[in-house]
């Protein structure tokens, strides 16, 4: 009886908080398919999706390289401050994205420490570079967090064997370490991409939100909602495309999860 009531509590909660709302969101999108489709195919929406994908791609590449190097340093580097580094990398996970946006605005504004760029025509704020910087900031921890435990698990025996056999540091990395951590890296990449596509708060502060230029997909959803005037089909339509992307990412996450940690 205890088991049944717990099952009922768990599934009931999920129905109210997760499943019900998602089903209703899909339902709302189908209420006005023409309106939703018109919003999705609007040139400004397409430009927003292109910007989101480009920014996310840059963030993924940068944070994959950084993530691997940083994880190697945390696990293998015999240097003081490793524990601090390990904790510090988590900061973007616990920081309000609006604070991240404001921090970038403060740093790169014309009177900021790095205001030189903005003053001399190399626009950072209210342009693509600041959107890229904000996205890199908020997605920083994901690859590190996935690679660190895997590196700890595989140990150093194989790497030592490779070096004893005469492999250089690079050869050891490419032929032994990287293949061993590749699934963790890919899983981190998927999480980075999901967070990058979905970023809202930080980008909303730095981008300037100009339709067709610096408006990302999530900002486009907000815009469509704010100027809905009772017609929410455009907002639901664009949101539906983002939600479908999230579901594809989720499916990728399930297939990429290392077997032993699958629930």
């Amino acid at each position, binding site marked *: 009886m205890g088991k049944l009531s717990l099952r009922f509590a768990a599934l009931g909660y999920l129905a109210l908080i997760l499943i019900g709302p998602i089903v209703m969101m899909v339902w709302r999108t189908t209420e006005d398919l023409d309106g939703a489709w018109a919003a999705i195919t609007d040139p400004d929406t397409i430009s927003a999706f292109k910007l989101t994908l480009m920014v996310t791609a840059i963030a993924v590449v940068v944070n994959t390289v950084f993530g691997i190097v940083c994880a190697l340093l945390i696990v293998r580097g015999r240097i003081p401050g490793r524990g601090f580094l390990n904790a510090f990398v988590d900061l973007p996970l616990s920081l309000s994205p*609006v604070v991240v946006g404001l921090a970038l605005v403060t740093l790169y504004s014309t009177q900021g420490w790095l205001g030189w760029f903005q003053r001399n025509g190399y626009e950072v704020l209210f342009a693509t570079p600041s959107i890229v910087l904000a996205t890199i900031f908020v997605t920083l921890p994901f690859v590190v967090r996935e690679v660190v435990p895997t590196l700890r698990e595989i140990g150093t025996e194989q790497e030592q064997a490779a070096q004893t056999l005469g492999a250089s540091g690079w050869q050891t990395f490419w032929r032994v370490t990287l293949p061993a951590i590749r699934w963790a890296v890919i899983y981190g990449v998927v999480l980075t991409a999901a967070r990058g596509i979905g970023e809202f708060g930080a980008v909303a502060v730095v981008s300037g939100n100009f339709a067709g230029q610096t408006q990302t997909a999530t900002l486009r959803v907000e815009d469509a909602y704010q100027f809905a005037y009772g017609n929410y089909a455009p907002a639901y339509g664009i949101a539906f495309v983002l939600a479908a992307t999230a579901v594809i990412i989720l499916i990728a996450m399930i297939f990429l999860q290392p077997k032993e940690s699958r629930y």
Partner: protein
Amino acid sequence: MSASTITEAPGLPAPAAHRRERVSSALSLQVGLVTTFLLIIVVLPIAAVASKAADLGWSGFWQVVSSAEAVAALKLTLAMATLAVLTTAVFGTIIAWVLVRDSFAGKSVVNAIIDLPFALPTIVAGLVIMALYGPRTPIDFTLGGHHFDANVTFTRGAIYLALLFVTLPFVVRSVQPVLIELDKELEEASRSLGAGEFTTFRRIVFPNILPGILSGVAMAFARAVGEIGAIVLIAGNLPFKTEVASVFLFHRISADPEGSAAVAVVLLLISFAVLLGIGGVRWHVTRHERG
């Protein structure tokens, strides 16, 4: 053959001293890269905003942070985050337990969709909550003369529900692996010694999963305090009523950059406190392993 001819043979490892030098130069390259990157991407922006807040001086800082609207926004944020995280802790633990110890049709699907709030953009999460709990909600009925509907837009209920949605996976995913590892025999032994279900849970299961719950709770709390995307569309953002700290800060940025820096520093301090808390839990959990 003597040892020296072996080390000198082509294609064999360089002498140890030589190699150590190369390894350490690779290490300093790594240290340089990671430090420079973190400095440019994370430390400089945060230092810039902290320095701007410091320019206000203590009294200026305090004036902004203690203004009625800022205090109301911070209080609301902390209260809502606490409420939501407590709910998430209870139901997240129950869901994790059901996913590990129970079996029913469709369990793997249920398990898979738990991560959806992680994958879904937060602005979409806001719309998702609004679809069921917004205007035209299908939960709308009259019972015994009392009309009831689940439209929570522009109320604190909207903030609460949005936070429940975005924080859902944290506790589930931090408790689940601990429950899987937990030896079932311990629980069986406890039961066979005459302990009831509740006693077994309280004395055997709960102490083991508590660190998992706490680390999930800390991450969820940090997330809830900083949340904006899921809240901004449905809360209405009415000052003193439904305006959370992130939204308050967002609205203030263009009008008052210095003052907003002060609010940002307060949020930053909350984040540091949460990070310290998580570090504390990790330290506490691994203390036996370290010996």
